């Protein structure tokens, strides 16, 4: 059902990215890559053209996922959602300025993530949370 939708996971915590990979693949999505930092994320974006990007905010080597969100918003090609444990007001506001599909807080609810991706995939309007 979701075979055509490929997803890039930008997450530096390996156990969490492993869980996300398994969760997305079980739900029928294809994971086209996992990047722990911005450099690797840009490389995968260029070479594998994902349909959707899941972005953690605090990344390896002090990289900030919001920088990637801004670039994706500017290019307006690839939709994305944030998945972050940092949910203080200033981080949240800065993230929401980039107009993501959603802002999910860790601990991630697997069902909530699947629902957001399914709604997006099915073309339903989703209010960022």
């Amino acid at each position, binding site marked *: 059902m979701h075979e055509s939708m490929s997803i890039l996971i930008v997450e530096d915590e390996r*156990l969490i990215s492993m869980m996300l990979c398994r969760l997305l693949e079980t739900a029928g999505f294809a994971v086209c890559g996992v990047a722990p930092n911005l450099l690797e994320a840009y490389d995968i974006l260029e070479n594998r053209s994902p349909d959707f990007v899941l972005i953690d905010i605090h990344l390896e080597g002090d990289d900030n996922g919001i920088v990637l969100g801004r670039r994706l918003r500017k290019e307006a090609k690839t939709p994305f959602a944030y998945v972050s444990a940092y949910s203080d007001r200033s981080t949240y506001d800065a993230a929401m300025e980039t107009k993501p599909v959603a802002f999910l807080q860790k*601990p991630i609810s697997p069902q*909530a993530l699947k629902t957001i991706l399914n709604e997006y995939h099915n073309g339903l309007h989703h209010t960022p949370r």
Partner: protein
Amino acid sequence: MDSQNVETILDTLNDLSTVLSLVLRNAFLYQNLEQEVRKRTRELEDKNLVLAKTLRERELMLKEIHHRVKNNLQIINSLLYLQASTSNDQRVQEALEKGQNRIHSMALVHEELYHSEDLERIDILGYTKKLCQNLESIEYGERITIRIEGTEPGLLLPITYSVSIGIILNELITNALKHAYPQGTGGSIIVRIENTGQNATITVADDGPGIAEDLDIAQGRTLGLSLVHNLAQQIHGSFRIQNRSELEAGRQGSIATLAFPLGDDA
């Protein structure tokens, strides 16, 4: 000028000199006092700056602790999810999913504390709403609705209570979602949170067929209910589950009631 006038003038000059010396002395004392007040004010301002800095540092440290605890709980949940995904046994998957939900209920306490004003207490009503968003979306969203009610004033609890209450709420709501509406039936679950000042009461009621009379729920045979009984004791509270018809004739469904005293730190 006669001698009497001279004497009067001298007396007046003498008085003036006394007054002048008093004025000068007072001026000197006033100046000293002003300097002392300025010095003390500066000292107090410096102390306030140090206190404010310490307070900010404490807040940042507490936030960082809640964040790290939350992150570690997310990692534990990821491990349980990965473990569950390697098994084809539905019972194993269900058991690990229950574990994940329990950990999620604890992580949510730290999430709420992170956002709370004093970083020490959370609003149980707001917490319950977020907890239910996760539970409701699991698989029951369309056939079972959850209504959450709270009385004023709200119930603000410190972490010592919140983790226990979070796990209890998770068990009771999960229990109602899984067992109150068998064979694909639907209905509504009402979670009510009451704060009477000295005590608090939390009820979870459903409008399903109710509990079977021979079901010895009070003994807490399942791990979930055993957790509820033990955590209720930990917060010096009482717990019971009964059919709603026992409280109101003709009423369908069951109701679980947790009552506990609000101690000095609650």
